[in-house]
């Protein structure tokens, strides 16, 4: 005869187990469908369990007060008809192997969540800043912890990056600039200007333009070594490596980081230039990078300035200045100025140098 289990019923959506309170039938007793066979408790409520089919009680498989998982048998009936679900789920739901009978939480059980690996939380930054300001600060190499927010919210905004000026530092910077320019004022120097036609590819970005100017000017001086000198002790001293100081506007005034141009093409050189320019913009340039220049370039192209008469930085003998690009009927042009120590050369030398520079510049472009 078929055997059929009566199981701990799942009586609510969340129930996973129940307590057997008592049996109301005994082994050998005949039951009809709908007869109460046991009382179980769940959520502190007693519930009667009914037989869903007629049969004879073959075995009571649990003991009162026992906790039983949903789907596990309370008792086994020997039945006339077979259980509707008999044999549909793996081993037959007869009592032979009760444990396999009830994959009780086949669906109801949720997989245990793996505990997420503990990760050190990023250090809480005290600095509040607009995302745009953070991007700009990173570009400029500005340390946001040193910037004061102007707005009441305390959030650093882009304008704060420009106004975070330390007056003492500014005063010191001016003193330094005064020293350099006063020394320069004692030198006989003149400036020659030339309009230079440039290819339209010139100057797409500031860094690219700077790199181009550096290369072109380096080549120019290499081609004209008699101008690449220091006037010291009443004599021109020839220099070997061209080391160009590029004047950059920084919070405390112009700074002049030195950038060497590699003799062989180096792919990462452009990004080096970018880094040095960015660092200099915020006055964060290493002292080592501020000395040893043999010449200088001042690029005022961003300021819509046509031309500038810049001063030499002693003991350098040359200073190149670049004005903004303008359109002419024949193409683009800019005005370049070369300031020269008169003791080193004459206006004719400067004019030749600029002509050479025009050639070099367009070659580099």
């Amino acid at each position, binding site marked *: 005869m078929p055997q059929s289990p009566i*199981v701990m*019923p*799942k*009586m*609510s*959506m969340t129930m*996973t187990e129940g307590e057997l309170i008592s049996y109301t039938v005994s082994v050998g007793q005949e039951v009809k469908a*709908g007869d109460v066979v046991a009382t179980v408790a769940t959520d502190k*409520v007693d*519930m009667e369990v009914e037989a*869903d089919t007629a049969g004879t009680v073959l075995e009571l498989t649990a003991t009162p007060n026992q906790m039983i*998982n*949903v*789907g596990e048998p309370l008792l086994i009936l020997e039945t006339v008809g077979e*259980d*509707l*679900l008999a044999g*549909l*789920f793996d081993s037959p739901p007869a009592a032979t192997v009760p444990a396999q009978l*009830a*994959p*009780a*939480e*086949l*669906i*109801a059980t949720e997989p245990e969540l793996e505990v997420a690996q503990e990760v050190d939380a990023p250090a809480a930054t005290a600095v509040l800043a607009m995302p745009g300001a953070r991007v700009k600060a990173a570009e400029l190499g500005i340390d946001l912890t040193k910037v004061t927010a102007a707005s009441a919210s305390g959030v650093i905004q882009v304008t704060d990056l420009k106004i975070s000026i330390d007056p003492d530092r500014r005063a010191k910077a001016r003193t330094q600039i005064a020293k350099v320019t006063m020394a320069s004022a004692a030198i006989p120097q003149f400036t020659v200007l030339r309009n230079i036609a440039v290819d339209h590819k010139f100057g797409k970005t500031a860094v690219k333009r700077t790199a181009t100017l550096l290369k072109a000017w380096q080549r120019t001086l290499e081609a004209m070594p008699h101008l690449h000198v220091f006037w010291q002790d009443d004599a021109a001293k020839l220099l070997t490596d061209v080391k160009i100081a590029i004047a950059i506007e920084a919070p405390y005034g112009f700074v002049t980081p030195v950038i060497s141009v590699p003799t062989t093409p180096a792919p990462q050189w452009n990004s080096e230039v970018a880094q040095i320019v960015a660092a200099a913009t915020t006055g964060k340039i290493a002292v080592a990078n501020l000395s040893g220049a043999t010449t200088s370039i001042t690029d005022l192209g961003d300021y819509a300035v046509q031309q500038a008469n810049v001063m030499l930085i002693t003991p350098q003998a040359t200073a190149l200045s670049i004005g903004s690009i303008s359109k002419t009927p024949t193409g683009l042009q800019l005005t370049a100025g070369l300031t020269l120590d008169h003791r080193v050369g004459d206006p004719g030398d400067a004019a030749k140098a600029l002509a050479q520079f025009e050639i070099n510049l367009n070659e580099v472009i």
Partner: protein
Amino acid sequence: MVAITPLRSPESGSLQTDKAAALAALESMLAIRSFEEAVDGLFARGLMHGTMHLSIGQEASATGVCAALKETDYITSTHRGHGHCIAKGADLTRMMAELLAKQTGYCRGRGGSMHIADTKTRNLGANGIVAGGIPIAAGAALAQKMRGETNVVVSFFGDGATNEGAFHEALNLAAIWDLPVVFVCENNKYGMSNSTELSMRVEKISDRALAYGIAGETVDGNDVDAVYQAAAVAVARARSGGGPTLLECETYRWKGHSKSDKNLYRTKEEIDEWKAKDPIERFQEIILSSGLVTQSEIETLIAKVREGTRDAIKEASAAPDSDPAELLSSVFREAN
């Protein structure tokens, strides 16, 4: 695919005097019972997830009403909708697959027990909202009327739904527009735990038809032939342009409202009293004693239904689980 033998509307006008119609009606009731007992068993054993509402004890109303319908007629159903779905001819395998959270289920696992619809058998869907389907039925009926179709729409709902505003609005619209719809209230005495004695002052729910100027009738909802005959009249009225009917079938659900019901609001005596009025046993006795069918024919039918249910479970269990990958793309229908 497992489905019942299609129900028949016999020329004799009674399910009790037409053998094929009687056997089809019995098969429908047995199939509903068997399907729901299986669901109950699967849930009790922890093999089925969620919740579901069983209509065991109410099989005659779904069966009797659907026997009065043509294949092209529509139904809207309720949260207690397995019976309506099966009686209208749905595939038990796809129903079971839906309840077992399978990709092959009617709703691909997105709806579960309360949201099964079947375009093939023109079941516009079960509904998780009490009375939610009633205005929808009115609208589907409006569409039939506007298009000059002769199809009828049956809206099944419970006693509790008749206290909802949607019931009022839908019956009023259907009445003023003479819509081809039959409102079938399966009064099983309880809206969850709230009895009709507590929830309404009218004696019969069909009395409410008066308020809309439509026909209303109450029948013994456990007598499948009585339900059929009353439904046939209402359906004919609707089909011929005579407007809606409110048909009340008095019945009883044996099981709790849902899977969390502990039956605290009603007595065991009351449940037993209604179990004694089992619509299946009653109908079997009638057609046996009249000699319309034999005991062995009934036994063959019971065995067939049992195997059908088991086949549905087997086939559904073997299907792949429903697939989360297609969830986001399922919210809207793509434009053609």
